[in-house]
């Protein structure tokens, strides 16, 4: 057995979808090349961009930072990072510490924002309240608000997130299965909102399978936080992911074909289905909102805060 590219007998990975065998160096190079190709094909970066990386310290965000940093080294872009501390005991702190170390190692501007500081409550405390919603619902909304705010404060022109192929395919299938055509129009490598207050979001890892990102960080010896959130439990996303992975065992190209198919219908979907952007402002915090209150403030009031 030998590497399909260079002949090295020390093979570390077999790509199921193509049968390709790769040694460590060729594997690392193939991931980096593929991400750079996505960035170029989808025009994710413009010269002079200041990219805010949403850095949790997990494998996806650390890989995003690592590869975007090659553009920073070539002085194409500048990078800053934000880490959201939701306040989850025995879980989040390690990721925050790892994020800090990466930011320091690369010498980039980095900011840690906690839910506690911004909203006066931790996720753990929310989950102790009566009649709370699912933990991930709060996380998603508060995290998005905090990251959008940080992007404005730090003067970022783009926000980069670590969404990988598996995340994106799950989102496509979930929204499709739930008939959520509104959300279906929002996916893609680059999501732009017509509202100026929302910074353009990019997903450089969108074509990289989750497993390959895990292997990449181990192969490159990057420090990351591998752990599961104590609130992570059976969710619809988890069920969908299981089905897709099961299908992928016999049909190894299925994730790519789902992504390609979505990309082909995306523009039509957008034209036909995209909801009008709401120009309102939240009367409580002033953030953009489609109703009187933005989602974050709506949840806060619901919790009696």
């Amino acid at each position, binding site marked *: 057995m030998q590497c399909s590219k260079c002949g090295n007998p020390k093979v570390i*990975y*077999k790509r199921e979808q193509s049968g390709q065998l790769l040694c460590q160096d060729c594997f690392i190079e193939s991931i980096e090349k593929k991400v750079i190709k996505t960035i170029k094909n989808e025009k994710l970066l413009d010269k002079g961009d200041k990219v805010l990386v949403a850095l949790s310290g997990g494998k996806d965000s650390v890989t995003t930072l690592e590869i975007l940093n090659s553009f920073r080294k070539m002085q194409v872009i500048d990078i800053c990072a934000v880490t959201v501390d939701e306040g989850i005991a025995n879980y989040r702190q390690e990721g925050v510490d790892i994020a800090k170390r990466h930011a320091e190692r690369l010498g980039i501007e980095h900011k840690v924002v906690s839910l506690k500081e911004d909203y006066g409550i931790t996720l753990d405390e929310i989950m102790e309240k009566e009649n709370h919603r699912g933990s991930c619902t709060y996380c998603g909304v508060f995290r998005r608000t905090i990251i959008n705010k940080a992007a404005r404060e730090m003067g970022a022109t783009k926000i980069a997130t670590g969404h990988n192929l598996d995340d994106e395919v799950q989102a496509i299938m979930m929204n499709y299965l739930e008939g959520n055509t509104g959300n279906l129009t929002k996916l893609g490598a680059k999501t732009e909102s017509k509202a100026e207050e929302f910074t353009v979001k990019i997903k450089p890892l969108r074509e990289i399978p*989750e497993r390959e990102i895990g292997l990449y960080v*181990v192969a490159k010896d990057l420090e990351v936080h591998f752990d*599961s959130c104590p609130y*992570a439990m059976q969710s619809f996303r988890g069920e969908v992911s299981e089905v897709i992975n099961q299908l992928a065992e016999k049909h190894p190209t299925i994730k790519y074909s789902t992504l390609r198919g979505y990309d082909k219908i995306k523009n039509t979907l957008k034209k036909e289905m995209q909801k009008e952007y709401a120009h309102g402002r939240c009367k409580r915090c002033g953030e953009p909102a489609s109703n009187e209150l933005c989602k974050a403030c709506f949840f806060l009031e619901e919790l009696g805060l």
Partner: protein
Amino acid sequence: MSFLLKYKQLEEKCEIPNENYTIRDLLDEMELSPQTVVSKQNGELVIEDTVIEDGDEIQLVQIIYGG
């Protein structure tokens, strides 16, 4: 014939049960999916079809967590 297994907090000496015992066989026994784990043999990344040899140190790193 034995090898050292490292997985999370676990560090354990294990017998090699039969000839041509691969990391994939070990993962099956531990009920771990090769999709969620990467494997190192004596500190170097290897594929799951690698045969475990006497005296090997096999480290499994879980890279994907549910949820």
